[in-house]
């Protein structure tokens, strides 16, 4: 018995809203049971798809099972959320369920430990806080993340409060962030004056962006920051649209607080947030869009909050994280420059899905997501135009806000071009999590318009066709959006795949790292490749050499003999206290799946198109160099101790005749 039913017992009369259908008691049980069966079957199918993946490098059936599961899981929820007859409260509950359940693909991908590159780096930073009690500790895998401790600090706080390990606490936090991201888009839609239905559909459409299922669910700072960006925008829009001073003050306060949280968590999100706020403030200052009573106050609020966020971001970038710009600039600068070269015919355009393990239909759907987004955007724009012409969207804050979100959403289309350049593709993909906020806000009402348009038709065949078409469009968007993000090796478990970050972690590598830490301790400076370094620099708590053009570690591997190793490199090893070398012998036989042995952006000649490793026959020298002592070897990994500086004399080439004795104890 609830307090509400008690109130009814106290004499309140149950009210029937006009136009409501008589509620049939128990009529919901059958659909609910069918929905529950679909969800359970969907989860089972996803798990089965992953299980198949573990046995094969790639197979059609793992993709089929996975997507069958995802569609079983999501389509029933989406269809009930989209129904006009669904109550707002039920819609909110189903949106919560959708938000939680769409975390399942990532959760099942790595339920117990990190697997993606960035996850190892963030694991290490969180570990450092827990074991040193300090923030801003250097990170050997991604140095810049040390200056953005938001995610690590909150994970460490959760570890301290709950007694969970780092990965479990991170998972709890990420499930919440994922859920809040969906709810945040819906809250943003409602703050912009949409119905609960349109706002919920905007949230569903947002979930089709390529980062939603995997990239923004990984244990990385952007996964938390994108949620913070959305909630900052919710508070920002509510501050702009508030009708009372009290509410405006409260929403302004929250906007500043949320902006600060975003800024200390992730650089690109902070940039995007300030950009979003600036565009909104600018559009709110345009008279033909925003002029109405209280217009100046609204624009002043927007500019004031934007200025506050910009000042905080500027302070953080300049004082706390001065390396941010140099870290980010190559992604955009080189991307644009490569794109220009491609346009002029002087560059080599990046081949999309070049070495992809995805089936053909996933790849085709990935192209269609752009068409889907374009259609929804055009629909949204036409709807805004119609409303403006009919006088239902008068100049004012709401018109200005909708136009600014539409503008921000349209940025998605030019950014798609950057995917054609290898340097720009990374940045383009990361930008979609933000541009799709605007796109979703634009598309939500047009989705409602599409769903309701069949009421104007007579033919049942047309109605069936329309629903079928919409269902197909949702399927294409869900599959294509995900496929346009991460490649199959990231999304599906599978056997070891050389040079794939998500499939490089083996018991052998973990054992090698554990042996090294147990024998020599932690905090050593190591030279190694990108994939071995993930484990040595995280669980192993070692520091690894960060390869760059100024510190070309690969020259050590490339040299045919002792004399070919550049002395300047050896001097750098010595000055940097790099005393150990970890070698994965497979680099002499295989080309890395991710296209880099040491670091993305390494010289292209290291990964020749012939398919034969450039390091073939060049790693054996490490066994005979007098200044390297081999202290460990497993099936694939060897560890050497470096005695630097290189002595003028080595070991004798004339071996003695003295006899010793080998003994092995069982």
């Amino acid at each position, binding site marked *: 018995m609830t307090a509400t039913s008690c109130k009814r017992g106290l004499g309140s009369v149950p009210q029937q809203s006009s136009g409501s259908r008589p509620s049939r008691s128990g009529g919901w049980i059958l659909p609910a049971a069918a929905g529950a069966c679909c969800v359970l079957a969907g989860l089972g199918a996803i798990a089965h798809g992953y299980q198949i993946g573990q046995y094969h490098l790639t197979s059609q059936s793992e993709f089929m099972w996975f997507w069958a599961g995802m569609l079983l899981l999501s389509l029933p929820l989406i269809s009930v959320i989209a129904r006009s007859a669904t109550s707002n409260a039920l819609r909110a509950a189903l949106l919560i369920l959708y938000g939680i359940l769409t975390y399942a693909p990532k959760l099942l991908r790595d339920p117990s430990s990190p697997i993606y590159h960035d996850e190892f780096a963030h694991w290490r930073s969180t570990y450092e806080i827990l074991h040193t009690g300090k923030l801003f500790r250097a990170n050997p895998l991604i140095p810049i993340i040390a200056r953005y401790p938001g995610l690590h600090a909150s994970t460490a706080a959760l570890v301290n409060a709950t007694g969970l390990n780092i990965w*479990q606490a991170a998972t709890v936090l990420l499930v919440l962030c994922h859920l809040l991201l969906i709810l945040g888009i819906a809250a943003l839609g409602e703050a912009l004056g949409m119905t609960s239905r349109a706002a919920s559909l905007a949230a569903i459409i947002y979930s089709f962006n390529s980062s939603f299922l995997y990239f923004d669910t990984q244990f990385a700072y952007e996964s938390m920051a994108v949620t913070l960006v959305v909630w900052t925008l919710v508070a920002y829009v509510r501050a702009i649209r508030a009708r009372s001073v009290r509410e405006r003050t409260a929403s302004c306060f929250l906007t500043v607080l*949320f902006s600060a949280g975003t800024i200390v968590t992730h650089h690109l999100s902070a940039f995007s947030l300030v950009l979003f706020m600036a565009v909104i403030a600018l559009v709110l200052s345009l008279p033909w869009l925003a002029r109405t009573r209280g217009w100046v106050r609204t624009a002043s609020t927007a500019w004031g909050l934007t200025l506050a966020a910009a000042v905080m971001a500027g302070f953080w970038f300049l004082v706390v994280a001065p390396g941010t710009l140099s870290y980010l600039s190559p992604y955009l600068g080189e991307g644009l420059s490569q794109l220009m070269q491609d346009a002029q015919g002087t560059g080599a355009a990046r081949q999309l899905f070049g070495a992809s393990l995805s089936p053909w239909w996933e790849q085709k759907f990935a192209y269609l997501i752009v068409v889907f987004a374009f259609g929804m955007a055009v629909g949204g724009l036409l709807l805004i135009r119609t409303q403006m012409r009919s006088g239902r969207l008068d100049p004012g804050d709401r018109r200005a806000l909708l136009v600014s979100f539409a503008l921000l959403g349209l940025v998605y289309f030019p950014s798609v071009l950057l995917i054609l350049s290898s340097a720009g593709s990374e940045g383009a993909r990361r930008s979609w999590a933000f541009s799709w906020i605007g796109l979703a806000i634009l598309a939500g009402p047009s989705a409602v318009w599409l769903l309701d348009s069949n009421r104007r038709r007579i033919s049942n065949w047309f109605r069936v066709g329309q629903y079928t078409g919409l269902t197909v469009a949702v399927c294409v968007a869900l599959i294509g959006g995900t496929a346009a993000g991460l490649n199959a090796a990231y999304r599906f478990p599978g056997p070891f795949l050389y040079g794939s970050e998500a499939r490089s972690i083996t018991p052998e590598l973990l054992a090698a790292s554990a042996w090294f830490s147990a024998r020599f301790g932690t905090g050593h400076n190591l030279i190694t490749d990108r994939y071995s370094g993930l484990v040595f620099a995280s669980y192993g708590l070692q520091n690894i050499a960060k390869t760059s053009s100024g510190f070309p570690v690969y020259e050590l591997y490339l040299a045919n003999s002792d004399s070919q190793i550049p002395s300047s490199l050896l001097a750098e090893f010595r000055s940097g206290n790099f005393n150990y070398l970890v070698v994965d012998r497979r680099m002499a036989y295989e080309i890395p799946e991710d296209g880099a042995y040491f670091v993305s952006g390494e010289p292209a000649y290291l990964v020749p198109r012939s398919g034969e490793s450039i390091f073939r026959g060049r790693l054996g020298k490490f066994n005979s160099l007098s200044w390297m002592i081999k202290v*460990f*070897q497993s*099936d694939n990994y060897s560890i050497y101790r470096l005695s630097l500086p290189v002595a003028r004399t080595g070991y*004798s080439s004339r071996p*003695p005749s003295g006899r010793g004795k*080998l003994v092995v104890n069982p």
Partner: protein
Amino acid sequence: MTAMCKYLHRVSSLWLSAWPICALVLFSALTAIHALPGGYVRAIAAVPTVLLVPGSLAVGAVFGGRSRPQGILFIGYAIVLSVLLSIFASLALYAAHVPITALSTYFVMLGLSAVLAVVAQARLFTERPAVVPQAVGRSEPLDRETPNLGDDPDRAARIRRFAPIAAIVTGVSLLAGSVYFYDHLPRPSDAGYTQLAWASTREASSITVGPEGDRLYFEIVHRQPRQAWFRLNAVWQGSSAQALAKPLTLSIGPDKTLQGDLFVPAPPGQCTYRLVITLTEIDQVDPLTKQQPTWSINANVRESGKSRSACAQ
């Protein structure tokens, strides 16, 4: 009116009039939760408190009673604020040069929550309930307006109250269940491996051997599901390898770790010599090299008392 209804009514009234203080009491009870052993039980008890209470208090303090957001907006603000407050607490501790520990974080959060609870409670007492609906909450649809056909007020009130909680509990249970199910599906066994390594750090640098000789210790780890046969060899490395010890043939069972040692006689003269221990698996072929799988480690040895610089190649 039943006794249960009276009781629910009283609890409901108490909660509505003093929820900030009740929430603060709940947060301070985390000390009791900390006494539980770390694990899922403690996590289930602590997670909702840690991720909801400080943020709820902040929402109450910032908005007061009249314009406090409801429903999903309240939950969203509360969780985001709880997370952010924990980040700001860590930053404050760092700035104050106080180590970030479970205890220090808890006390800072408790202090923050206490301040927020007092402000929220004060605003609750001093403010009258809202009479004007909030402008922002009003929907001004771009899409064609349709009546909310499912919104029977009484039923909707019940759903509104419990559906989000039910959805969260259902969603989390389904996620946990799917992980359990996936964890219990058959899967390929992990690829095994074999290791050969020195058993101490001494061998990592040049070793001095006295006139009576010395022992170098090593270990063989065999993490394979099957027994295998190996040949163990020790040689002096040079222009032509010279046997150092009589080779051994070993049979190593699944998941075994063996300890071994190599007795090294005093090396002659003033030179540094390199010795190599090699383990070769018999009757197997390495798929990469198409040869017998081989593991090796090496070390540099020299006679004690002799200067390394006197040792010529």
